[in-house]
């Protein structure tokens, strides 16, 4: 067969095998949730690592996201004398879209890459094999607590990001467009429906689980020493970024 075609076929087969493995891993990890009681300490440790390690990055990304949205839309709205609508746009934008997406992109870079590197290193140094030989299922021991922690952390950090982003947007609206803070808050509160908040948080949870599954799957499939761990980490971040955006579109379409 023509060499580039053969190469493309090989890549396609690999991608399909990887997708199948990742989906299977998610289902197996979900099945292990019945043993959560025995792994609650590890899950809590992972949760605190996710949260504490991401607070500062999420603070900065969400603050500036809210400020940028406010600045950009404010300049257009000013032409129509609609600056007071900024509260509506910023709050809704943060809760529906910016909060979940930017928080989870940050988590994919911060936590997903850590998981892929950590589990990948364990795989190439035979620690995962050692668990299997001791009849300890790596999905139960390594994947399930991390997945759950990342799902919960994504939701909690999104709430935090929504608040910080809205505050950032309000500050810019006040400073640049002379919008009264009480009007900004009132407009935001009026615009926001329960579905907007829950829809955004549901997105976050799904993104968090996606990042965790992809990262753990890449780690568990790592081979070929340190270079293999590097590849697993890179693939984890790239695949997570793409899936977050694809799922974001689909979920937005389904929820709203």
């Amino acid at each position, binding site marked *: 067969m023509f060499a580039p075609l053969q190469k493309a076929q090989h890549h396609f087969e690999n991608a399909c095998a990887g997708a199948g493995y990742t989906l299977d891993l998610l289902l197996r990890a979900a099945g292990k949730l019945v043993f959560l009681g025995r792994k609650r300490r590890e899950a809590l440790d992972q949760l605190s690592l996710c949260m504490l390690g991401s607070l500062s990055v999420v603070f900065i990304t969400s603050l500036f996201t809210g400020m940028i949205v406010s600045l950009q839309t404010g300049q257009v709205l000013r032409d129509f004398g609609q600056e007071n609508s900024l509260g509506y746009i910023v709050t809704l934008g943060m809760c529906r879209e910016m909060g979940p997406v930017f928080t989870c992109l940050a988590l994919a870079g911060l936590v997903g890459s850590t998981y892929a590197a950590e589990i990948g290193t364990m795989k190439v140094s035979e620690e995962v*094999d050692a668990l299997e030989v001791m009849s300890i299922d790596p999905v139960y021991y390594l994947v399930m607590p991390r997945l759950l922690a990342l799902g919960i952390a994504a939701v909690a950090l999104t709430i935090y990001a929504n608040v910080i982003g809205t505050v950032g947007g309000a500050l810019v609206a006040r400073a640049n467009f002379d919008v009264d803070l009480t009007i900004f808050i009132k407009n935001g509160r009026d615009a926001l429906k329960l579905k907007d908040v829950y829809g955004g948080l549901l997105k976050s949870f799904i993104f968090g689980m996606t990042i965790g599954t992809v990262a753990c799957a890449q780690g568990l499939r790592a081979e070929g020493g340190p270079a293999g761990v590097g590849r697993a980490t890179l693939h984890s971040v790239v695949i997570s970024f793409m899936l977050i955006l694809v799922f974001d579109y689909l979920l937005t379409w389904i929820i709203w």
Partner: protein
Amino acid sequence: MNRTDPPPPEASEAPISYRPMLSEAAIELCDLTKDLGGRPVLDGVNLAILKGETMSVIGGSGAGKSVTLKHIVGLMKPDRGVVKVNGTDISGGTPGALQEARRKIGFCFQGSALLNSLSVFENVALPLREHETVDDREIRRRVEEKLALVGLADAGQKLPAEISGGMKKRVGLARAIIRNPEIILYDEPTAGLDPVMGTAINDLILDMQKKLGVTSVLVTHDMTSAFRVSNRIAMLVKGRIVKLGTPEEFRASTDPLVQQFIFGESEGPLTRPGA
């Protein structure tokens, strides 16, 4: 079986072709075949390892030694053939059969494979915490007993990154024997160690056989180690067993393959182009 005891006469015959399995075999490999990346790594291996004996599997790099060990513990599935542990087929059997077989096996990895996030104590205690309903006091007692057995009574609180390669191997051994297995598998137990530490590890392997009466399988290319600890030695070349016998038989062998390997000569049938 003492290491100086002669093996049963029928077990010391050359096993190149298929042999009927022995009833007292702890591990049986029948026609074990495995290809990796299109290359045959195991090519119809037949081997019976008797209960209580120490068997060394020797051979050059890429001969299929570690792959053989991984089949015995179910980390790899054969393309063809059967692996039996205490008479139970684990290669084509149920997951329950594999679990049960693993319960009876301790595995010492070449790189120790200790979990770096856990202390030495927690590494050794891990199988107990995950599989047995024993209280913390009992776990402490058993872990300290095994650490003392491998000469590391004081190292419990250290992390794997804080101890030497030889100590890691001993911690790996303590973890492998924590649930009193019937079979211990060693993957290159002396690789990367200085001669003194290598001898200490060999003595530990002998100790395990003497004190615990376990069946041991070593994969090694260290002939000093193989001669020192084995009741029998099997030589793997290109995925096939070419010679099986006692250490004395290996020393006395005039087979050029065996001669080249045990004396580490660069010229010979093992290194001949196309060999």
